[in-house]
């Protein structure tokens, strides 16, 4: 499967409180929560983002709490893929579990905000539109690949016949 989208670039250690602040976590639904995505950093991010956009982060993207609201609101505002130098463990797992692609790739320094990337999952390649730049990334562990293919953990459980 291929993904194509415009890049929002962030720094290192983008923590879960910045992605989604505590005070909105008890709002009833993800739809009501999503308007507060990245609120401490980018005002009205949910209005500025376009479906299919991607996020590029530095080291330790998603550090901090285990709140699945963080990847869930990103998915809800239309983000399809997060590429980072490294991810915090729980965030990574949460993202994959809900079918939001989280890719570890060393393209950070050469990709800029607004660039359009194409992600080719099968061949593990990221290309920057309008340039010759190409970056590879490691495949997912086999266990994770099954889940990514199913579209997330629940879909995987539903499809497993258990």
């Amino acid at each position: 499967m291929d993904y194509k989208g415009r890049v929002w670039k962030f720094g290192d250690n983008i923590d879960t409180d910045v992605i989604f602040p505590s005070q909105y976590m008890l709002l009833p639904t993800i739809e009501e929560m999503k308007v507060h995505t990245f609120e401490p950093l980018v005002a009205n991010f949910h209005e500025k983002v376009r479906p299919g956009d991607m996020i590029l982060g530095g080291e330790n993207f998603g550090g901090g709490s285990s709140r699945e609201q963080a990847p869930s609101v990103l998915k809800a505002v239309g983000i399809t893929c997060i590429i980072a130098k490294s991810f915090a463990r729980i965030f990574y797992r949460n993202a994959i579990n809900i079918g939001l692609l989280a890719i570890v790739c060393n393209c950070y320094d050469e990709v800029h905000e607004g660039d359009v990337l194409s992600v080719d999952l099968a061949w593990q390649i990221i290309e920057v539109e309008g340039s010759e730049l190409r970056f590879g990334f490691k495949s997912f562990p086999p266990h994770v690949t099954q889940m990514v293919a199913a579209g997330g953990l629940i879909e995987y459980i539903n499809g497993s016949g258990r």
Partner: protein
Amino acid sequence: MAMTLSEKVLARAAGKDEVTPGEIVQTEIDWIMTNDATTHVSIDIFEQKLLKQEIKHPERVIWVVDHNIPAESVETANVHRKQRIFAGKHGFNSHVGEGICHQLLVEKYVLPGQVVIGADSHTCSHGALGAFATGVGSTDLVGAIREGSLWFMVPATLKFHLTGKLREGVTTKDLILTIIGDISANGANYRAMEFSGPAVSTLSFESRLALCNLVVEAGGKNAIMEADEKVVGYLRRNRPQGATGVVLQGDQGAAYEKFFHYDLSQIAPVVACPHAVDNVSPIIAVEGREIDQVFVGSCSNGRIEDLRILGRILKGNRVHSRVRLAVSPASTRVFLQALEEGLISTFLEAGAMVLNPNCSTCWGGCQAVVGDGERLLSTGTRNFKGRSGSALAEVFLGSVYSAGAAALAGKIVNPINYLGL
């Protein structure tokens, strides 16, 4: 093959003779904890997406309302109600307003050798009991309550060899902050952090919980310590049947990814400066900064031992006029113990706000938050931008000694000098 303590716990739970780092194992889960910050998200996943809506072991699921209690809005109240109905329908263990989830699990549930997950990153605290405990998201939680088991990648272990003894006025909060500052916010990403060495026996059980509590701030998957007599003694005193679990030890010659050595006598008071937990600095480097609020509480430092220290500092003194001091005991049990020892009265006399047991300022979603331009010294777990209220506030994390001293001084001070320790 020789295994680390984390590997041994996971191997036992997975029914395997041995496991190695990087291996994926499916293990039974002894306790599954979910709290009011995220349970509604899990309920929606469970009810809207899961085809076969069953719960394998409802008696192993613990639902705790600790983040937004007392409810501060209609939305929150309605979310609590939705969670309550779900927990009631499925027969979960329910705890509303009794304290912070991680403290309740220590007081009532977790035993050495068990595997515990919680939809909260500070679930790693229970490593102090010799359990494998880690935080998960809402979807993993749904998978686990549905299946009774979950997959884990066996983590490689970083071993922290502890020697010496902490001097008075320095706590395991200073130690773990120092470690996080040294190895950085993702220095232990995907890794187990094991604390061992001769110094461990000098640390109280409670101070070990504080140590293990913060490993996630270095990205750690779990913390782990061998359960010794102090842990077993605590369990004998506090659990109805005196159950003490399965006490496991790491093998001689087990493979560790990396060794670190800390001489506890060399640890000095430190604070984590805004806006990252690994932005650690000796407290003397930030001395003199004025403080608007001090918070003592949280799953990190809201236990009786912490309240006793605060009580000694506040006894006979008044909180500085500039400072709001908020104190939140970690649980009802802690509150009652503090009440009996006269600590709650001491706090009230000194001018503190005594909050009901809950996550409070550390979480910032419900009560006792800070405003624009304010500065907070907190014994809590995180100092991210906006974490404890305004995104324009500064949050410093420190020990209860540092917090108590700042509450009296109205500014950050070195507690050792200020308190004459």
